[in-house]
């Protein structure tokens, strides 16, 4: 057997799995959307015409963008502290970030049900402090969905950015200092530009993750705060409108793939090391 043949033979089962159970089903989902008797794009025209569907799309975008922005800011500042910590504290902090990351999304969303509920801890605390006179309805709002999403994705951002910051050689900040750059100038002119590609990668992960999430909006947003994921599920499994669900799926695929492709191209352009 030639090496090439052997290489393909070893790859075949995995390629077969992906082709048969991912390639075909997803392509079939996408193909369904163009089969409308009123014309290939009728489903999309209907989608973008419907005020309700557009509201869901924009809400999802908005939540994803806000989640990403907050996660970037919180994640970067925290990752900075983690990266600069002495080794022992650093490994503790990394454990503290990994633990929630590996804990399931249902469990983590559930925590916010307890915290934000009518009789939840936050309401109890605010009442006790006398800041409010009766409990606030915080669940099933865009706020509850967003805070749970931030909670979901901050650990991912921290871990990504700790890796990014640690990959910046100490030599470079020292070189900047030796050339007269104050710590602030060295941060702005050396550290930040070098961290940008990593920041983009982290942002893409968070954006696509929150844009396509299901469990969190289901638990904390419910019917009132329908998002793309919950909307897709509702169309597919409650109203059994598979063509409509496929259209939602297609929009999700286009948004996420476009984001990934555009942003990774941008990250590569801004990554000087790759030349």
């Amino acid at each position, binding site marked *: 057997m030639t090496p090439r043949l052997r290489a393909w033979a070893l790859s075949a089962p995995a390629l077969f799995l992906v082709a048969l159970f991912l390639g075909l089903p997803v392509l079939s989902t996408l193909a369904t959307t163009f089969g409308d008797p009123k014309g290939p794009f009728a489903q999309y025209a209907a989608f973008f015409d419907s005020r309700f569907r557009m509201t869901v799309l924009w809400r999802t975008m908005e939540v994803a963008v806000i989640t990403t922005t907050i996660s970037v800011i919180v994640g970067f500042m925290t990752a900075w502290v983690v990266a600069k910590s002495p080794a022992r504290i650093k490994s503790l902090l990394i454990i503290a970030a990994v633990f929630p990351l590996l804990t399931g999304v249902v469990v983590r969303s559930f925590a916010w049900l307890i915290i934000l509920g009518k009789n939840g801890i936050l309401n109890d605390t605010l009442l006790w402090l006398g800041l409010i006179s009766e409990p606030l309805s915080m669940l099933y709002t865009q706020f509850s969905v967003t805070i749970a999403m931030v909670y979901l994705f901050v650990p991912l951002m921290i871990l990504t950015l700790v890796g990014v910051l640690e990959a910046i050689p100490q030599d470079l900040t020292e*070189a*900047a200092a*030796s050339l007269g*750059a104050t710590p602030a*100038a060295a941060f702005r002119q*050396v550290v930040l530009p070098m961290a940008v590609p990593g920041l983009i990668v982290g942002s893409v992960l968070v954006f696509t993750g929150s844009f396509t999430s299901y469990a969190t909006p289901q638990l904390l947003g419910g019917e009132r705060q329908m998002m793309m994921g919950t909307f897709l599920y509702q169309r597919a499994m409650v109203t059994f409108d598979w063509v409509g669900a496929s259209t939602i799926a297609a929009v999700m695929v286009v948004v996420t793939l476009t984001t990934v492709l555009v942003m990774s191209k941008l990250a590569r352009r801004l990554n000087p090391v790759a030349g």
Partner: protein
Amino acid sequence: MTVSLSLSGITAHYGTTKVLEDLDLHVGEGELVSLLGSSGCGKTTTLRLVAGFLEPTTGSIKLGDRDLTRLPAHARNIGLVFQTYALFPHLTVRDNVAFGLKQRGIGGAERRKRADTMIDRVGLGDFADRYPANLSGGQRQRVALARALVIEPPLLMFDEPLSNLDAKLRVDMRVEIRRLQQANGTTAVYVTHDQEEAFSISDRVAIMNAGRIMQLDTPEVLYSRPANAFVADFVGFENMIPLRAVAEAGDAVRAEMPGGGVLTLPKEHFTVPSKEFILATRPEGLLVAPAGDGIPTTLGLRTYLGRAYQYQCDTPGGEIKANGPLAQPFESGTNAVLIPQPEQCCLLPA
């Protein structure tokens, strides 16, 4: 502007480990002093202290009449060339070189002009718009040099700047470094573990070990007159023969080896430092002769070095190495004597 650098009474720690002990070092105006030693000897620590990346536990660092000891690194105005070059990968060659000027608030046009002039001086005129990733090792080295020089620092420091280059380029670059340093008359500190490199470009060399300077002198003196056994071993005195002075015989001292055998050392050429002492030589410092006043030996394995033959010699003081002339090869097993050549031998206190 040329100034001198003075370190006095410097002690430094990493955590609880002492890495420098009561170190004094003076580098004169326009002088290039190398810190030479194996890894862990404290040479890089010394450089990082002067650069301001470490703080000494005690002692002071002065550049001219400026006290640097507690000054932050970015306020020290020292040109630094790193072992890894530490070029900013996100900046072009020009922007790398202009970085220091920018920090000094020098405006766009002037900054560009000065950077380009310096880039030309290191021979990279055609590469100003490239990124470091697209340069060869030697070119990166030149950028690092230009970047350190363009800020016209009163002190230049090099941290193993050539260790990532191949052998031929290393020789070319060290000549270039020396040329630029002398042309500007800049005071310089050069850290290396490569003896040839240190000796070739330095005015003076400090040989360091375990956080101390073992000897600080010109390369010529270090090479031929090491002051102690450590330096002797470091500069290639492969034979260390322990001797004991037993008697004076007119204008000579008679000394014997622990295993027997007596040697006569004329006072005219040799100054015996103490009763117990060491005769340190390179293999070429011992002349292999059929007979005479020298160390008795049985010649062992002979190897050919090109300029001479080298013999493994069995002597009462142990196995030592000696070179013999090409014109007169000896067979293995021959009895001979090894005669110390005064100008190539040192007597050191034991």
